[in-house]
C-alpha cells in the first residue's frame, strides 16, 4: 500500500519519495486513556527528521486526535515540513465494509496528497473533485479524485518555484 501511495505522490506532484519504517506513538504521544495518538505531539518530532528541502509524512495505523478534536484523518502545519495521516479510519473495515486494499490505498493517497498540499501552504479548495477539498467523512473522501485541480497544482508549482 505504501509503495503504491509513494508512486501516486510522485506522479501527482513530481516529488521524490522515500519510505522509512518507524514506530509512531511509542514516545509519549500515545494517550492510553483515549486509545489515540496526539498528532500535536507527533508533528514536532517528525519536523526534526525533515532536512533542508524535504518534507516528512508520517503514516500511523492507530487513530489520531488533535487536542480539541475528537479524531482526525490527518494533520499538517500549514507551510510546515511535517504531516501525519492515520489509516485507522480509512480502512473499509472501520465502517463495517469488507477489507479492500485498493480502496484503502486510494483513500490514503488522497489524504497524503491533501496534507502535502497544506505543507505547500494550500488552504482547502472548493472545487468538488480536488483532493484539497475538505472531507469530514469517508464518503466525502471517496467523492474526491486522487489529484489536485489545475489552480491548486499551479499554486504548488509556484510555491516549489519560489521555495
Amino acid at each position: 500500500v505504501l509503495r503504491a501511495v509513494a508512486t501516486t505522490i510522485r506522479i501527482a506532484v513530481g516529488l521524490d519519495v522515500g519510505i522509512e519504517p518507524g514506530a509512531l506513538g511509542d514516545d509519549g504521544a500515545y494517550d492510553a486513556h483515549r486509545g489515540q495518538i496526539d498528532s500535536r505531539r507527533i508533528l514536532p518530532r517528525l519536523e526534526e527528521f525533515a532536512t533542508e528541502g524535504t518534507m516528512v509524512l508520517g503514516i500511523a495505523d492507530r487513530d489520531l486526535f488533535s487536542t480539541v478534536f475528537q479524531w482526525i484523518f490527518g494533520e499538517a502545519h500549514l507551510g510546515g515540513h511535517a504531516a501525519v495521516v492515520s489509516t485507522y479510519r480509512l480502512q473499509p473495515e472501520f465502517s463495517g465494509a469488507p477489507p479492500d486494499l485498493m480502496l484503502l490505498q486510494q483513500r490514503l493517497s488522497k489524504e497524503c496528497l491533501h496534507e502535502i498540499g497544506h505543507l505547500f501552504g494550500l488552504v482547502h479548495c472548493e472545487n468538488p473533485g480536488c483532493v484539497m477539498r475538505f472531507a469530514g467523512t469517508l464518503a466525502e473522501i471517496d467523492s474526491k479524485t486522487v489529484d489536485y485541480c489545475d489552480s491548486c497544482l499551479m499554486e504548488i508549482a509556484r510555491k516549489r518555484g519560489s521555495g
Partner: protein
Amino acid sequence: MTQAEGTALKILVVDDEIIVRRSLKDWFEEDGHSVHAAADGAAALKLQHDEGPFDVALIDLKMPGMDGLELLRHLLAADPSLSVVVMTAYASVDTAVRALKEGAWDYVTKPFDPDLLSQLLRRSKEHRDLEMMNARMRQSIDEIVQPRPILGHSAAVAHVLDQIANVAPTETSVLITGESGVGKELVARAIHANSKRSYMPFVVVNCGALAEGILESELFGHERGAFTGAQFQHKGKFEAADKGTLFLDEIGEISPHTQVELLRVIEEKTVIRLGGNKSIPADFRVVAATNRDLRQHVAEGSFREDLFYRLNVFQIEVPPLRERREDIPVLAKHFCTRFARQMNRLPPRIDSIALRRLTQFDWPGNVRELSNAIERALVVQKGDVLTTEHFPMLRDRQSTPNGSSSRSLSDVERSHICRVLEATNWNISEAARILEVDRGTVYNKIRSYKIEHGTPSESNDPSSRE
C-alpha cells in the same frame, strides 16, 4: 481552485487555553478563513472594536473574569448580526442552552467532531451569504419601490410630512382625509414605506369602485363554491396584506353590512373567507382614506361610530391645492419633468404668465387635475415653452366675462362636466359629488353629450352643440 477571498469568513476565537486557540486558528486557516484569537472577554471586545466586524465568534463559556455568557451579551449588543457559537465541555450543556436563549447562534462541545465543526462553519457561511444577499435585495427594493415624493414647500405640506414621520413607525391605524385628487394614496404609501412593514406588501382596495358583494369577496376572500361563479378558492386582500399595510381608499363608500365585518376583522385580526368557517389569522396595518366627512356620516347613522373610531386613531388631513398655492409652481415643474421623461423629450418651460395663472386657478380636482393638465399640455405642445394656450381651463377662466356670453347653456354644461370627469380620472362617484348631482345624472349627461374618455372639455364637435 483555492478558496476565493470573498467566500472566506472572518472568525473570532475566544478561549483561555492557548492550545484551543492555536488548534482552531490552524484548523480555520487551513480552510482559508481569517482568524483572530483572544484569551479573555476584555481582549475579545477590544478585537471586535479594533478588527471587527466578524462573521462568526467562537467563545468558550468557562473563562476567568468575564464568562462566556456575559461576553456573548456584549458581543451581540455591539453587533447584532454576529453569529456567536459557544464552546462547552460535555458537562455544561445546560449552560449552552442558556446561551442559545441569550442569542447564541449555535454551540459545539469540546473536544470537537471535525466534521460537525466544518458543517457549522459551512452553515455559518451560508447564513452570512443570505444576510448579505438580503441586505442587497433590500437596497435594490428601496431603489425600486421608493414612493413618489410628496412635493411642496408650504407649511401645510411640512405639517403632513411631520405627521407621516410621527405615525409611520407605529402600528396605529391612520385615517387620511381630504378632497379627491389631493394625494391621499401618496400619503398612505409614504406611511407604509417608512414603517417596519415596508418590505412587506402594500395592498390597495378602492372601496368605492366595487359593488358590495364583490368588495366583500375582494376584502375577505372566498372559498370554492361560496357563490355562483366561485369556482376556485380566493384569498382576500386582508390575507394578501399579511405583515404589510392594507390601504382602504374611499372607505366612506362601504355598505353597513360590510362595515360590520370590517370592524370584526380589524378588531380580531382574523379573516373568515366567504363561504368558509375557518378563522385565518392576518397581521395587517390599516390605513384608510376618504373625501367625505365621516363624522357627519356617523351623526347621520350611515357610518358605524365604532368603526370610525377604530380607523380614526390618527388623522391626517391633506389640504386642497388651492390652500397651498405656493406649491403649484414646484408641482407643475415636477410633472413637466416626469411626463417629458416618459415621452422621451426635454421638459418644456412654463412661461411666467401661464405659471401665474396656474397658481391662481382653484383646481377643483387638486393635484391630480394639475398633473392631467400638464400631461395634456405636453401632448399638444411639441415646442419648448408652455403658455396659457396649452391649458384650456385657464382659457375658460380668462374668457369667462366675454367668451361665455356667446355660448349656450348646454355647451357650458358639457364643457364643465368634461372638465370634472378629467379632473377625477373618470371617477363617476367623485364627479357626481363635485357636480352635486347623483351618479345616474352624470351617466345620463355623458350619454346625451356623447362624452368619451379623452374628449377635450372644449369640444369643437358640432354634434354636441344643440
